[in-house]
């Protein structure tokens, strides 16, 4: 499969008076496959928007290379088949929804009213086509934003914090639209710090902190490596000492034994030994790793590394 | 990169094109046709602070405030402060006709020394100022008239220019009828007798029409005045033989202007004290009203002209008057055929700096400036006047004037060196001390005007 986005040592350096030269994006190597929803994660100021702007040649890299849909960044041709929804965008408020779409479509050299109307329908704004943008709610503005990003039937969409500042219902609507995009075969590049959203829809993620990618991979692989919690009753306290599982945390309280052990160790052996000691298994709970844990852990690790 | 260099080349080419277009095609046309008529002269003489001050802010508003201030300086006699202010006010608001008129008058008349002689070094400035005002306000007669008045009355020696400016004023519709009459005496003094008469006739017809339409007192008065003026003038022209000259029988008749009368001019200038000169001399005209002009000025001064200077020094209002130049002009009044006048220049060193080594004294009499009863004898061009020693037909071409020239050095005027104790004086060779009695035959006799 071809890469939708590829960067090699992409770097953006800003000169700051107090800090000197700061690499906002530091030798970034990014790889996004076609047809996937890619989550680009990182805390505020990590360099997410800077990376997107470089990919769209709104700003220029200090060094390194990048390709979007196989074309070097800066090539205007590729702009015909990509689209971008910036974070908290503003639209010309005096225009109606339909006028706004007509304006953006004219930037592609198109003049297709029917298509614009269909897109309004698609984002559920058909009834509000003649309202001006100033009368739109935030969720409606975000939906019209998505509609404009679909004008050119793009192969690749850049969505910067697409659900930022929206209420839960609007969240769901946007999320459903994004999932539809993938089903239509589009590549979606989402930059976000709202992990629960990304966790639900992304195929792959990259975590960026201080301009560097610190984790990149399939969500299922990154979240691989959970733990089990086994709780048993009617056991002697001395049983505690017989549990010899590496990296396990064993505790005994109120006649209950709690074993917190890594996935991959022999769970069955533990259960067998509990049963042979006439103990009662109360629960066996698999605890999968959550993206949030991974994120917090990763960011903390890199920050400590940087501090050292 | 290639695209950028193409753009840069285009930029450079366009830059040259615009520069050429402006410098060669637009600027000269703008200057000729569209420039505010103050441009060019406007800023000269203003110090940079005033210039900058004028560049910002509300022009007319500031002009108004400044004019109030200038007026208070006039009252204090602080003319050095006034000049730049007037300049600034008119530059800010070139349509302030009154500021031009009064400003010009102040500049021309009011820079006076302790003996009330005005500083004539400022006259070219006043003239240029008037001309600028007229250029900026071409729709009204006022500044044309005021500038003409400066020539007619203040300079009083070059009526050609007075005529020129007043003819311009006449072309403006708003000139009041009473003022139009003045052009006729200007014509006369310029020797254009026929034009003077024609104008009177024309104005008379107009006045009659006006009086018919509206017999207000003012209208009747103007009509009657013109009528009287025409009568008097015709009588005079007959007596002086002008009509005879026009008809060609002047030689045959007895006219007041025949034969030319010898005025017997002589003068002695004595430096009585440093920068104080006493002028004594003779002039054989008994009727009162003779004023002989005396000018003391740097020898070889720029813009020199006998018995004065070239007053019209171009249209640029240059507030930088030649401060190093000494130029004094005074009138010597004749009483009982003699004049005796002490001119004190010792108290006004800014007006009379005496920086040059050598000075000339010029004595000048032109019948054109004389009162009518004396002109009756001498005529407009001096045909009825002569002087054995000092008749001059060159300093004012076409006119017979009396002109004499003496010289003094700075040391003499300021009583320095050997002149500290010795009293310097210069005199014409024919000068005779006043105790010698004059012959009665020297007296002018004009029949009908003065019984002797």
């Amino acid at each position, binding site marked *: 499969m071809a890469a939708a986005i590829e960067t090699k040592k992409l770097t953006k350096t800003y000169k700051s008076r107090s800090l000197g030269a700061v690499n906002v994006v530091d030798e970034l190597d990014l790889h996004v496959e076609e047809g996937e929803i890619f989550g680009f994660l990182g805390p505020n100021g990590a360099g997410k928007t800077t990376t997107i702007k470089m990919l769209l040649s709104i700003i220029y890299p200090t060094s390194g290379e990048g390709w979007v849909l196989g074309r070097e960044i800066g090539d205007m041709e590729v702009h015909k088949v990509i689209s971008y929804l910036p*974070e908290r965008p503003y*639209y*010309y408020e005096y225009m109606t929804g339909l006028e706004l779409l007509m304006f953006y479509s004219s*930037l592609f*050299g198109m003049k297709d009213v029917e298509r614009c109307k269909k897109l309004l329908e698609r984002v559920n704004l058909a009834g509000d086509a003649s309202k001006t943008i100033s009368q739109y709610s935030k969720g409606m503005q975000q939906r019209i934003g998505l509609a404009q990003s679909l004008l050119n039937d793009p192969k690749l969409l850049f969505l910067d914090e697409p659900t930022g500042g929206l209420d839960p219902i609007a969240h769901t609507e946007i999320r459903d639209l994004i999932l539809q995009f993938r089903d239509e075969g589009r590549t979606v590049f989402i930059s976000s710090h709202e992990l629960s959203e990304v966790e639900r829809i992304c195929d792959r993620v990259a975590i960026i902190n201080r301009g560097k990618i610190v984790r990149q991979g399939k969500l299922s692989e990154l979240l691989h490596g959970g733990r089990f919690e086994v709780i048993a009753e009617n056991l002697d306290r001395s049983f505690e000492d017989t549990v010899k599982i590496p990296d396990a945390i064993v505790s005994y309280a109120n006649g209950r034994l709690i074993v917190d052990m890594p996935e991959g160790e022999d769970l069955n052996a533990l259960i067998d030994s509990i049963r042979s000691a006439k103990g009662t298994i109360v629960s066996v709970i698999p605890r999968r790793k959550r993206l949030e844990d991974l994120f917090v852990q990763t960011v903390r690790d890199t920050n400590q590394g940087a501090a050292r | 990169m290639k695209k950028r260099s193409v753009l840069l080349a285009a930029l450079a080419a366009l830059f040259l094109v615009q520069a050429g*277009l402006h410098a060669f095609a*637009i600027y000269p046309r*703008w200057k000729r046709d569209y420039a505010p008529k103050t441009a060019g002269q406007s*800023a000269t003489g203003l110090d940079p602070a005033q210039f900058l001050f004028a*560049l910002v802010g509300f022009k007319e508003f500031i002009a108004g405030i400044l004019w109030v201030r200038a007026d208070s300086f006039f009252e204090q006699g602080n003319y050095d402060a006034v000049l730049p202010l007037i300049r600034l006010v008119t530059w800010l608001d070139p349509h302030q006709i009154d500021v031009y008129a009064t400003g010009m008058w102040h500049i021309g008349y009011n820079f006076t020394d302790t003996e009330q002689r005005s500083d004539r070094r400022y006259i070219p400035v006043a003239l240029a100022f008037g001309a600028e005002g007229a250029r900026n306000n071409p729709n009204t007669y006022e500044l044309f008239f005021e500038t003409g008045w400066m020539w007619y009355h203040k300079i009083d020696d070059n009526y050609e220019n007075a005529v020129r400016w007043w003819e311009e004023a006449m072309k403006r519709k708003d000139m009041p009828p009473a003022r139009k009459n003045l052009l006729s005496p200007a014509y006369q003094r310029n020797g254009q007798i026929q034009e003077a008469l024609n104008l009177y006739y024309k104005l008379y017809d107009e006045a009659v029409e006006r009086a018919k339409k509206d017999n207000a007192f003012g209208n009747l008065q103007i009509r009657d005045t013109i009528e009287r003026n025409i009568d008097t003038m015709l009588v005079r022209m007959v007596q002086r033989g002008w009509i005879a000259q026009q008809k060609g029988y002047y030689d045959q008749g007895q006219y007041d202007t025949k034969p030319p009368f010898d005025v017997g001019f002589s003068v002695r200038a004595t430096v009585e004290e440093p920068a104080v000169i006493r002028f004594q001399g003779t002039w054989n005209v008994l009727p009162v009203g003779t004023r002989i002009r005396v000018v003391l000025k740097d020898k070889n001064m720029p813009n020199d002209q006998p018995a004065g200077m070239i007053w019209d020094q171009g249209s640029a209002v240059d507030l930088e008057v030649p401060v190093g130049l000494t130029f004094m002009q005074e009138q010597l009044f004749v009483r009982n055929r003699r004049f005796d006048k002490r001119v004190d220049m010792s108290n006004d060193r800014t007006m009379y700096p005496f920086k040059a080594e050598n000075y000339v004294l010029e004595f000048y009499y032109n019948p054109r400036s004389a009162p009518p009863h004396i002109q009756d004898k001498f005529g407009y061009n001096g045909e009825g006047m002569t002087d054995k020693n000092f008749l001059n037909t060159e300093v004012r071409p076409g006119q017979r004037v009396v002109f004499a020239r003496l010289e003094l050095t700075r040391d003499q005027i300021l009583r320095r060196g050997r002149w500290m104790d010795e009293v310097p004086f210069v005199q014409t060779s024919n000068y005779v001390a006043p105790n010698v009695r004059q012959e009665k035959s020297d007296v002018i006799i004009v029949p009908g005007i003065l019984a002797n």
Partner: protein
Amino acid sequence: MRAIVAIASTTVGEAIRRKVLLIILLIGLLFLSIAPGLGGLSPRQETTVLTSMMLGILQLTSAVIAIVLTVYLIPTEIERRTIYTILSKPVQRWQFLVGKYVGAILALGLMMLLMSGVLLLTYYLLQRDVSRLGEIAKAPLFYFVQMSLLAAVAVFFSTFVSPLVNFFLSGGLYFIGSMLNTIYDTFANSPTTNPAVKAVASVINVIVPNFANYNIQNPIINPGQQIQNPTAYALFTTAYGVFYILILLIGAILIFDKREV
């Protein structure tokens, strides 16, 4: 081309809805319509002063509108991030810049047209004289070229300075440019000026955008002056304006192309 037209038309749409511009325009219109009552005019000065005052109001208002309109033209787009949605489309930066500029001068033209209409109407109502209306109407046309040049100056500066700095920079340049011929005259024609200063004045005279060339109101205010070949003058000054606008726009594009937005 369609992109430029689209950007220009949205710029017009935005501009004619901007409150601050509408307020300036309203003040200008108000002053124009009450101009006859402003100065206690004496009859002899009435025509002269009225014409000059009204043209002055028109020019000043247009200049303020031109500057206020254009200094925010690009920065607002960046601040509101509309520029990102536009530049992520297949729109070249020069197209964006030209579109914004064309829109700005179209909006300016509309507003000036309105003011000129009010000016001519006021003049007519007061003087009941149609014979000079054509002559007076020439001035706003020259002013329009002047204001387009001013707008180009502001657009050029807006590619690299902040709006507030730009306001004073463009305003200052307009001021100097309007006095340029007079200032140049002062130096070039004064016999006392040092030759080096004269040379500098000549260089500045051909470098700085010259707004003074469009101040043609003097013969209009003082009729009776004979103008030789006004058509040639109009052509030359328009060509000058177009060339200088091109210079500024190319300069703006060169800078804006490298600019990080």
